[in-house]
């Protein structure tokens, strides 16, 4: 076998084209090898094919909230184990693992922040935490976020990333669907806008409750959005599912999503929508008012204008100075004389 040996030292044999761990990421769709730093700069959107990688709640908060403005609330709510549930693992162990892995207490983070200067209440789900599943805590935190939006009259944004209701809390998880939907009835009554953002995946009980109840529903390209899982459907109908079934584009085509927005334009698009609802952001706070006070005022103007009649008119008159306040003045100039006549 001597002849088989290389006489002169040639190229070093590379065992495999090993990518240094964590530095490079392969695109799930086009196979392009992407430099992680650059991918992150590009909001986890493939520079080759625009495939949207999943993001965690921190990344979404960084994407949407103005820098440093996110003030989390109810972050200490955590799941009890009301059923003493155990499958291959104890539910309490699953929770602990999820906490250790994510540094979160639960599958949703809720807080107040500004988005392009506009004060909002935001709830951002995190798929890494037990598949973003909704149990009592997710339901309660979302409900409290809705309450907060009503109290402060700030628009509500909920970003969904969830496999559905959490089995380990049985019927209590199911009831969170009714609970959050019921709270949204109060939000609608208070005439506070709700923007629902659907990311990959939005499924099951989450889709069938607050996710599908937005005044505006925005989806990320390619996101799975559906009620039943594709495997279950395939089993039920006994045939293959059509290409693109239950993807954002499919769901939009069937009339259940207002728009599909590339993540890199998401913040801008939400800003445009919010301005239509509540008027433009103030460039600078007029006085060094405490944050809590100035925020609700800015959000309040249009949402409550018809109700407040005169007071709202006065406020908008003051605001006509800012260039972007036009739609609002027009609105008031038509409604006000009518109500006074």
């Amino acid at each position, binding site marked *: 076998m001597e002849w088989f040996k290389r006489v002169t030292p040639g190229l070093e044999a590379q065992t495999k084209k090993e990518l240094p761990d964590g530095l490079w990421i392969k695109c799930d769709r086009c196979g392009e090898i992407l430099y992680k730093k650059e991918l992150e700069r590009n909001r986890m959107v493939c520079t080759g094919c625009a495939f949207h990688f999943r993001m965690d709640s921190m990344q979404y908060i960084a994407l949407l909230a103005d820098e440093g403005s996110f003030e989390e609330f109810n972050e200490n*709510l*955590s*799941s*009890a184990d*009301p*059923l003493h549930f*155990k*499958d*291959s693992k104890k539910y309490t162990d699953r929770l602990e693992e999820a906490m250790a892995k994510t540094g979160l207490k639960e599958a949703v983070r809720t807080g107040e922040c500004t988005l392009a200067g506009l004060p909002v209440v935001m709830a951002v789900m995190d798929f890494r935490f037990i598949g973003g599943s909704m*149990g*009592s*805590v997710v*339901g*309660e935190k979302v*409900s409290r976020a809705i309450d907060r939006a009503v109290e402060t009259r700030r628009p509500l944004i909920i970003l969904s990333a969830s496999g559905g*209701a*959490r*089995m380990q*809390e*049985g*019927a*209590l*998880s*199911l*009831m*969170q*669907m*009714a*609970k959050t*939907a*019921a*709270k*949204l*009835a109060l939000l*609608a*009554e208070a005439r506070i806008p709700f923007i629902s953002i659907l990311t990959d995946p939005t499924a*099951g*009980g989450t*889709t*069938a*409750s*607050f*996710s*599908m*109840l937005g005044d505006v529903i925005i989806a990320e390209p390619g996101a799975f959005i*559906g*009620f*039943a*899982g594709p495997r*279950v*459907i395939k089993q*039920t*109908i006994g045939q293959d*599912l*059509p290409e693109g*079934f*239950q993807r954002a584009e499919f769901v939009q085509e*069937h*009339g*259940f999503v207002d728009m599909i927005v590339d993540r890199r334009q998401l913040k801008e698009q939400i800003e445009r929508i919010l301005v239509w609802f509540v008027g433009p952001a103030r460039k600078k706070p007029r006085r060094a008012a405490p944050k809590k006070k100035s925020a609700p005022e800015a959000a309040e103007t249009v949402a409550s204008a018809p109700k407040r009649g005169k007071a709202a008119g006065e406020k908008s008159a003051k605001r006509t100075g800012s260039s972007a306040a036009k739609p609002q003045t027009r609105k008031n100039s038509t409604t006000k004389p009518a109500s006074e006549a």
Partner: protein
Amino acid sequence: MKNYVPEFEKPIVEIERRIAELREYSASKDLSFSREIERLEEKARQLRQEVYSNLTRWQRVQLARHPNRPYTLDYVRLMMSDFTEFHGDRLFADDPAVVAGIGTLGAISVALIGHQKARDTREKIRRNFGMPNPEGYRKALRLMKLAARFSRPVLCLVDTPGAYPGLGAEERGQAEAIARNLLEMARLPVPIVVVIIGDGASGGALGIGVGDRILMLENSWYSVISPEGCAAILYRDSANAHIAAESMKVAPEDLLEMGVIDRILREPEGGAHNDHAATAATLKAALLEEMEKLAAIPSEELVRRRIDKFARMGVWTE
């Protein structure tokens, strides 16, 4: 399926078979076995009581699915003096898996909505085994809004293995249809009484399950997913459904303790399938009682309480 007997009922059925045999034999031979028959009847009674007072959660699930169990239209026939069924969601189609209509219960005009299962194969297929498509939920909502406009209370009978996981159902927005109902039912300005009469599976059940009072028949179950579905995912095999049923605590007593339901209705001994009329009578009496109480509450207060009721559900630490 007429002869379907759940495993735990078999010893009782066996004794009953022997009694029948003896009767027949004694009649043909002109002999009296009355004492033996009496003894066996007593034994059957005792055994039934024993079995039925110690049913596991999984056994309750099996009873909830007993093919002779009364379905929505059986209750309609047995408790309402008149009923007119409405069809269609005015958008796409009529969904036979959901029955909706107007009628009279006692002296009250009500709107009634319920999942509908069936007993023979052809009818089962037509009713889609009680699994609604989005049209079912939208038809239900149409009736509810009509009831609200004319100040009539709404009754919902829940009995579904789940919302239909089909291609068309997804295309036509199964999730949206259920979500919409949750929101609209939360703020409907008339009383809503919900009764889980059999299967209470997941969003498909909840889609007509938001109300002021949630009642449950003794041998029914209600949870976030069917025991089989849960077992397939968490226990790797749907044959472990009996374990999942225990773990998820799907029985009425569990749900009463969790605050998910308000009241349990006892069934005749041996289960609702043994006596439709008696079960319907229990149901009717309970419904009239609940509706009388709710009728006294002003609608704004009613809605506020309903929303609060659901807002309180859940267990967490803080």
